[in-house]
C-alpha cells in the first residue's frame, strides 16, 4: 500500500517519518489545561505514549478522560480554551488549523467509539463505510480502496465469506459492529488509535474477543493505543501503562504492574477497593417459598415474511422454573438477548406468558391476563437507567409516591409525607429532598430514589434490573451496600438481574445462569462462580476480566463478613 500521499501535509513534514523515532513518544501531552466558558475541565494533564504501547486512561464519569481523548484527535468543542502542548509525532495539535486536523483524523489518529449501535450509519453498507475513510483522504483509488476495505475487515475478524462488505449494520451483532468500527479506525494504519470505552456496551464474552483484537492490532501493527475505560479489570489485563484521572487531573500514572501494586494516591486505592467490593450480606435463613416460576414460556410474534405467510414465533423464555424463598437474594445472569429482562418483566406482570405460571405467595401474578393489584403491590422494581426511569417533570415526592396507586386506600396528607420521608431516610437521603426536582440529583442519588420508590409500599420482592450497571464503581459499591443493608434489616428478598458477574457475585446467595431462554446452571453463588459446571458458565467466567488479587494488606473494605 502506498504511503507516498502522507507528504501532502503542510508544515514541512515532507519526508517519510522514520520508522523508529528513537526516544520520542508518539503522543506527548505536556501540561494540557482546558476550560469551557470559564469552567476548568482539565488541569495540568501530562501523558506520554510510545509507539506500540497501550496507555489506559481511567477514572469515573466526569473526570475528563474523554475530553483528553477528544483533544488527542482534535475534536474539542468550539468554545474550548486550551493551554499546554499536545504533540502527535512532533506536531502540536492544539495549534493546528481545522483543515490540517481533518487531514490528520482517520489517517494519523483513528478512533473507536463506545456505542457500536450508533457509531455506524444505518443506511450504508459496512464495506462502503470502511472505504469512506480511505477515500476521504484520497489515499488510493476506488478499486484499491475496496480491496483494502476487504483486507482490513478480514484483519478485524470479519470473514468476507461469512460477513460480506455488502451487509448493512442492522444485519450484524453488537460485537461485529464494533469490529466494523475498529476496521474504519485502522483502515489507513494510523499511528495512534483512541478507543473510548470500546467494550462497555458489549457482553462479556464479546468484550474479551474485542480486547484481544485491539491488543493484537497494537502489538502487530505497532500503533500506539490510548484506551479510555472506567473498568479497572479491563485496564489491569491489557494496558502497559495506567493514568488515573480525577476531576480533570491525573492523580497517578505509571507502568500497570507498579500502579496496581503501589496505589500511591488514595483515590486510586478507593477505585480499586470499590471494584473489588464485597457487600456485607450477612447470613439469612430463607423462609417459605415466596415467588414460584413454573415452566414459564414467553413467545414474541415475528413479522410476517410474506403477505399470507404464517406468523413465526420467537421463544424468548423457554420453560423456565425456579423459586425464590422469603429473605433470599438471588442473582440472574446472562448476556444480552438471553431472555432475562423478559423473564423479569413477566414476574412484574408486564408481559403475559404463553404457558406456565408465576405465583407469588401461592397466588398467580396475572389472573385472566389482568394483573391483580393485590399481588402486584408485593413486587416492585429498580431499573438500570438513573436518568430515564423518572418522569423529568415530577418532583421526588411525586415520583416516590407513585406506587401508592396500587393501594386501595393510599395514605394522604401527613401520613403520606411521613411515608415519603421514611422511604428517603431508608435509602440514605434526607426528607427535605422530597420537594426537589429530579434533575437536581446525581446518578447515584437517583438510584437511591429509585430504590425508595420500590420500597415505599413495602413489597416482599424487589427486582433489580441491572440496577447498578450505569454507575461509577465507588457509587456502585455504596448502592450495593445499601441493598445488602436493606436485605439484612428488612428481610427483603430480591432478584438481582445483571450481566456483570462481579456484581452478582457480591450481592447474592444463589445464582441462576441464563442462556437463550433457558436456565443452564443454578446453585449457591460461591459454588457456581468457583466451580462452574456448564460450559457456558465456564466461558463466562473465563471471559470476565479480573483484577489481580491485592498483594498486601488484605481486604479491608468488605466489613469482614465471610460469604
Amino acid at each position, binding site marked *: 500500500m502506498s504511503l507516498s500521499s502522507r507528504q501532502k501535509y503542510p508544515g514541512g513534514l515532507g519526508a517519510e517519518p522514520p520508522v523508529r523515532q528513537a526516544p520520542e513518544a508518539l503522543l506527548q501531552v505536556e501540561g494540557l489545561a482546558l476550560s469551557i466558558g470559564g469552567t476548568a475541565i482539565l488541569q495540568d494533564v501530562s501523558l506520554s505514549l510510545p509507539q506500540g504501547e497501550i496507555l489506559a486512561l481511567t477514572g469515573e464519569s466526569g473526570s475528563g478522560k474523554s475530553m483528553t481523548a477528544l483533544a488527542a484527535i482534535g475534536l474539542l468543542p468550539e468554545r474550548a480554551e486550551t493551554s499546554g502542548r499536545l504533540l502527535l509525532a512532533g506536531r502540536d495539535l492544539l495549534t493546528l488549523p481545522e483543515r490540517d486536523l481533518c487531514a490528520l483524523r482517520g489517517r494519523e489518529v483513528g478512533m473507536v467509539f463506545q456505542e457500536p449501535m450508533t457509531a455506524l450509519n444505518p443506511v450504508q453498507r459496512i464495506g462502503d463505510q470502511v472505504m469512506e475513510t480511505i477515500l476521504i483522504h484520497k489515499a488510493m483509488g476506488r478499486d484499491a480502496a475496496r480491496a483494502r476495505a476487504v483486507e482490513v475487515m478480514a484483519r478485524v475478524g470479519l470473514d468476507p465469506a461469512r460477513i460480506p462488505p455488502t451487509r448493512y449494520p442492522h444485519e450484524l451483532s453488537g460485537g461485529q459492529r464494533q469490529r466494523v468500527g475498529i476496521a474504519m479506525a485502522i483502515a489507513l494504519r494510523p499511528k495512534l488509535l483512541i478507543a473510548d470505552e470500546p467494550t462497555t456496551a458489549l457482553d462479556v464474552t464479546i468484550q474479551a474477543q474485542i480486547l484481544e483484537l485491539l491488543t493484537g492490532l497494537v502489538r502487530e501493527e505497532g500503533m500506539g493505543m490510548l484506551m479510555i475505560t472506567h473498568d479497572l479489570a479491563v485496564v489491569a489485563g491489557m494496558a502497559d501503562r495506567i493514568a488515573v484521572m480525577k476531576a480533570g487531573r491525573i492523580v497517578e500514572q505509571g507502568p500497570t504492574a507498579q500502579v496496581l501494586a503501589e496505589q500511591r494516591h488514595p483515590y486510586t486505592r478507593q477505585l480499586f477497593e470499590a471494584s473489588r467490593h464485597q457487600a456485607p450480606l450477612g447470613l439469612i435463613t430463607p423462609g417459605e417459598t415466596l415467588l414460584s416460576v413454573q415452566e414459564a414460556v414467553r413467545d414474541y410474534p415475528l413479522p410476517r415474511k410474506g403477505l399470507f405467510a404464517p406468523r413465526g414465533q420467537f421463544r424468548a423464555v423457554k420453560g423456565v422454573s425456579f423459586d425464590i424463598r422469603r429473605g433470599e437474594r438471588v442473582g440472574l445472569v446472562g448476556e444480552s438477548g438471553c431472555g432475562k429482562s423478559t423473564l423479569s418483566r413477566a414476574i*412484574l406482570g*408486564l408481559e403475559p406468558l404463553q404457558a406456565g405460571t408465576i405465583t407469588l405467595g401461592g397466588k398467580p401474578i396475572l389472573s385472566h391476563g389482568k*394483573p391483580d*393489584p393485590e399481588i*402486584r*403491590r408485593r*413486587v*416492585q*422494581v429498580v*431499573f*438500570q*437507567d438513573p436518568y*430515564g*426511569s*423518572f*418522569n*423529568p*417533570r415530577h418532583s421526588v415526592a411525586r415520583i416516590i409516591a*407513585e*406506587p*401508592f*396507586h*396500587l393501594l386501595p386506600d393510599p395514605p394522604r396528607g401527613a401520613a403520606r409525607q411521613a411515608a415519603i420521608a421514611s422511604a428517603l431516610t431508608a435509602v440514605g437521603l434526607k426528607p427535605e429532598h422530597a420537594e426537589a426536582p429530579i*434533575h*437536581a440529583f446525581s446518578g447515584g442519588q437517583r438510584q437511591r430514589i*429509585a430504590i425508595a*420508590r420500590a420500597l415505599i409500599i413495602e413489597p416482599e420482592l424487589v427486582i433489580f434490573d441491572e440496577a447498578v450497571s450505569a454507575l461509577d464503581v465507588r457509587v456502585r459499591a455504596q448502592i450495593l451496600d445499601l441493598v445488602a443493608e436493606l436485605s439484612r434489616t428488612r428481610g427483603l428478598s430480591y432478584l438481582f438481574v445483571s450481566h456483570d458477574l462481579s456484581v452478582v457475585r457480591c450481592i447474592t446467595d444463589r445464582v441462576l445462569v441464563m442462556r437463550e431462554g433457558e436456565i443452564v446452571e443454578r446453585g449457591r453463588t460461591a459454588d457456581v462462580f468457583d466451580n462452574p459446571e456448564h460450559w457456558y458458565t465456564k466461558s463466562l467466567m473465563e471471559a470476565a476480566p479480573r483484577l489481580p488479587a491485592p498483594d498486601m494488606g488484605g481486604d479491608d473494605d468488605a466489613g469482614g463478613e465471610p460469604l
Partner: protein
Amino acid sequence: MRPSLLLGAALTLIFTFAALLSFVWTPGDVTAVDIASRLQPPSAVHWLGTDQLGRDLLSMVMTGARTSLAVALVAVGLGMGLGVPLGLAAAARQGGWLDELVMRTNDLIFAFPSLVIAILITAIFGPGALNAILAIGIFNIPVFARLTRGAALSYWRREFILAARVAGKGASRISVEHILPNLANLLIVQGTIQFSLGILAEAGLSYVGLGAQPPVPSWGRMLADAQTMVSLAPHVAIVPGLAILLTVLGLNLLGDGLRDALDPRLRPSRA
C-alpha cells in the same frame, strides 16, 4: 430572552390587540361606503388610506384581524382538541386496531387537498366563516395526531413509563399523567406554527370567496378585491398583504423562540 422571540411576541400582541380593539372602536365604519373618497392614499384622516369603495383601510385591517385570528384559533383548537387525544390513544395501543384506524384515517385526510374539502363543505353548507373553521380544523387533526403519536411513542419506551405500569397505572392514566405533560412544549410550538398556517389558509379561502362573506372584512378578500387595482392604488393590496405577512412571521418567530426557550436540553439543568 432571544430577540426573535421578543419580535414574534410583539407582532402577535399587536395584531391581537388590534383585533380586540376593533370590537369597541375602529377609526371608521367598515360598512360605510363613501365613493367620493375612494382609493385615497394614506392621510391624516385615513391613516392607511381607503379602498375602492372608500372604506377606511385601517378599520378594515383591524376588523379583518378579528376574523383571521378567530377562524385560525378555533380551527387550531379543534385540531388540537381532537388530534392530541387520538394521537395519545394510538400511541398507547401501538400496532392495535385503534392505532391502525386513527393513522389510516389520517392518511385519508392527508390525501385530499384542503381547498378541495373546503369547496366540498361550501357546496354542502354554503360559504361562511364557520365552514372555513371546519375545513381548516379538519386538516389540523391529523397534523396533531401524528405529532402526538410519534412523540408519545418515544416516551412509551422510557423506563419511567415502565415504572408507572409497575405501579399499576393503566394506559389512559399514564397518557394523561406522564406523557401529555412531556409533550406540552412540543404541542405549544406546533400550535403556534399551525396557528400561522391557519391564518394563511383562512386568507386563501377568503381570497377564492369561500371564507367569511361580505360585509365581514377579511384579509384574504381585501387582497382579492385589491387585485385589479394594484397599478392604480398599490396600497390597497399592500396593507392586507403586509398584515398577513407580519402576523404569520410573528407567529413563526414566536413558535421558534418558544421551542428554544422551552427545550429542557437548552436550559441549564444542574452544575
